[in-house]
């Protein structure tokens, strides 16, 4: 008896599956865009930001009537910041003929791992944040919005370290992955050009928790400034362990985490005074940006970071490109449309892609004061 019921239930559920499949293909008037983001894992704050920002962009587009009358739908997948997961997602996205293009991923490592898969499918991967100089140039279908390491690295060395905090002897700790290697190389190169002495260069692999030995080693070389090339978790752990070991006379600057709220929340008093570079910060007189920031913070539950703003812009840019194409939307055509777009102005400013498919940006300096990120310089700081 029990067996019979089980058989009936199973066959019914199979049938439902078949009908569900039918329904999907019949549904017309929908444009699907994939979103690959690290929703869980070490970069979860950024992933959550991607999720909220891309959804906000799509809600706004749909409220205004969609793209040429079609509603936009996002397909979100969690890459966990892991290149293996990211390539799996890339396969799923490229194999689904309904998905036209992809916003994501967060890290350069994931983006560069998935680039060949998307390229083969002639599908656009527009990353809000990948900043490795080699990434966007990998094919004409790869785009990046946030700016390139070889523009930010030199800014950190010359303006953030030397001009802003007045560093004379600097030590560098970097996260050992594609992004970290490229970012710190760019810092070191400019540091040498401007005569900023680098006393020590240390690295660690993702997931490291104990920096006592590394910090003891660096303190021996007596630097006045410590440049941390990494994201919020490790940045906070290192700042705490610096305090723990009683190392008072060192200034901390950071490249990578941006104006991340997690730093302030996790670090408390131990991260006071940390300065970082950022391509974007909401100024009170920019009403569009302020409105976006307020809505984002209400939905996400944490302060807007530059990465999420870039995700918002990337989604809007993609939508605009698809809209421009009218009825002739193909995966391939979107890439050409994006690289020819010259008139897009997003929350983070005008975005015009270079021949490679990335953007050269200008940078600001922000610092933590009384548990809050405060903008310290404007774009004219670079002279």
């Amino acid at each position, binding site marked *: 008896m029990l067996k019979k019921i089980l058989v009936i239930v199973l066959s019914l559920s199979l049938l439902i599956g078949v009908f569900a499949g039918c329904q999907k293909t019949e549904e017309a008037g929908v444009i699907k865009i994939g979103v690959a983001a690290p929703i869980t894992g070490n970069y979860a704050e950024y992933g959550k930001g991607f999720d909220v920002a891309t959804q906000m962009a799509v809600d706004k587009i749909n409220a205004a009537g969609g793209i040429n009358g079609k509603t936009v739908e996002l397909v979100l997948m969690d890459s966990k910041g892991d290149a293996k997961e990211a390539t799996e997602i890339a396969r799923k996205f490229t194999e689904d003929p309904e998905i036209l293009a992809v916003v994501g991923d967060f890290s350069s490592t994931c983006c560069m791992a998935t680039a060949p898969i998307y390229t083969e499918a002639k599908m656009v991967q527009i990353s809000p944040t990948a900043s490795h100089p080699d990434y966007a140039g990998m094919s004409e279908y790869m785009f990046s919005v946030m700016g390139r390491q070889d523009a930010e690295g030199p800014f950190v060395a010359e303006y953030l370290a030397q001009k802003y905090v007045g560093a004379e002897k600097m030590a560098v700790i970097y996260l050992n992955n594609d992004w970290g290697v490229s970012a710190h190389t760019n810092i070191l190169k400019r540091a040498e050009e401007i005569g900023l002495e680098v006393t020590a260069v240390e690295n*660690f692999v993702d997931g490291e*928790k104990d920096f006592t030995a590394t910090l003891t080693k660096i303190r021996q070389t007596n630097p006045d400034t410590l440049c941390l090339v990494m994201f919020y978790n490790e940045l*906070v752990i290192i700042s705490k362990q610096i305090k*723990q070991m009683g190392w008072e006379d060192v200034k901390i600057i950071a490249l990578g985490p941006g104006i991340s709220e997690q730093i302030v929340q996790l670090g408390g008093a131990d991260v006071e005074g940390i300065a970082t570079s950022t391509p974007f910060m909401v100024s009170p007189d920019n009403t569009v940006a302020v409105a976006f920031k307020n809505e984002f913070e209400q939905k996400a539950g944490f302060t807007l970071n530059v990465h999420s703003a870039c995700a918002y812009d990337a989604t809007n840019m993609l939508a605009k490109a698809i809209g421009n194409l009218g009825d002739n939307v193909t995966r391939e055509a979107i890439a050409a449309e994006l690289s020819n777009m010259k008139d897009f102005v997003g929350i983070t400013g005008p975005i015009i892609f270079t021949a490679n498919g990335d953007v050269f940006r200008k940078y600001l300096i922000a610092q933590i004061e009384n548990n809050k990120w405060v903008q310290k310089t404007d774009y004219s700081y670079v002279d």
Partner: protein
Amino acid sequence: MYFLEQLINGICQGSIYALMAIGYAVIYGVVGLVTFTYGEIIMMGSFSAFYYFIAFGNNLWMALIAGFITAALVGVVVHKVCYQRFLDAPRYISLICTIGMSMFLKNLATILFGSEMKGMPTFFGGKFISIGTIRVGYLQLIIIAVVIILTVLLTIYLKKTRMGMRLRAVSQDKKAAALVGINVKTTTLIGNCIGCGLGGVAGILLGVYYNSVLPTMGGMAGLKAFSAMVLGGLGSIVGSAISGVIIGVVENLGIALTSSGLRDVFAFVLLVLILFIRPQGLFGKKGN
């Protein structure tokens, strides 16, 4: 001088490994099996301290006790689920059960506490003792002291009390212990709880020393504890303690010479090398 400072870093880190390994050795002794849940016990101890600090303020000593109790309670659950019903069954059943339990606890922690990293408060922040040019942090001294005190207490318990004697008897031979009237089930439960409790305390020290807790922190911690125990000779408490310190020192000196990216390489190459030369471990007896 610089190397002396790194040596102290190593001893401090190593003493946490040692405590984890001692707990592991006690469990291995009474249960007679390796456990894969130990890393998650360490993580649970660490999280209990994290929430203790939020609820009752930053009292490290009380948190250590709370962590011991929490981890021991988790130990009871592990014992009921993984060991008690399978005492006479083939041993691999319990073993696989601990793997499942480990995944369950890790995912439970991710659901309950969230997958993101949490920051631990800073203790004795910035205070240190200077000996010449060498600096030793207060926290480092406290950690080493806690580990030594717990090791001494455990040794006294095992060697001088009747309960400890029963534990040792069960470790040596379950059947013979049962024949002389020892309640093997209860003794195994108590031994498992003590081992887990020590793991929980080690987890707190680890969390405080690294200033962070994470649901996935148990994996590597459990592996290090296991390595230290194997290195010391399976189940040998003294051996586990010394091996834990050795692994910590080798790691830190390795980092001093090369880079932090190679931390685990040093630890595990050492393990392989020593097992190659002395398969029974540093302090194990041949034929065990």
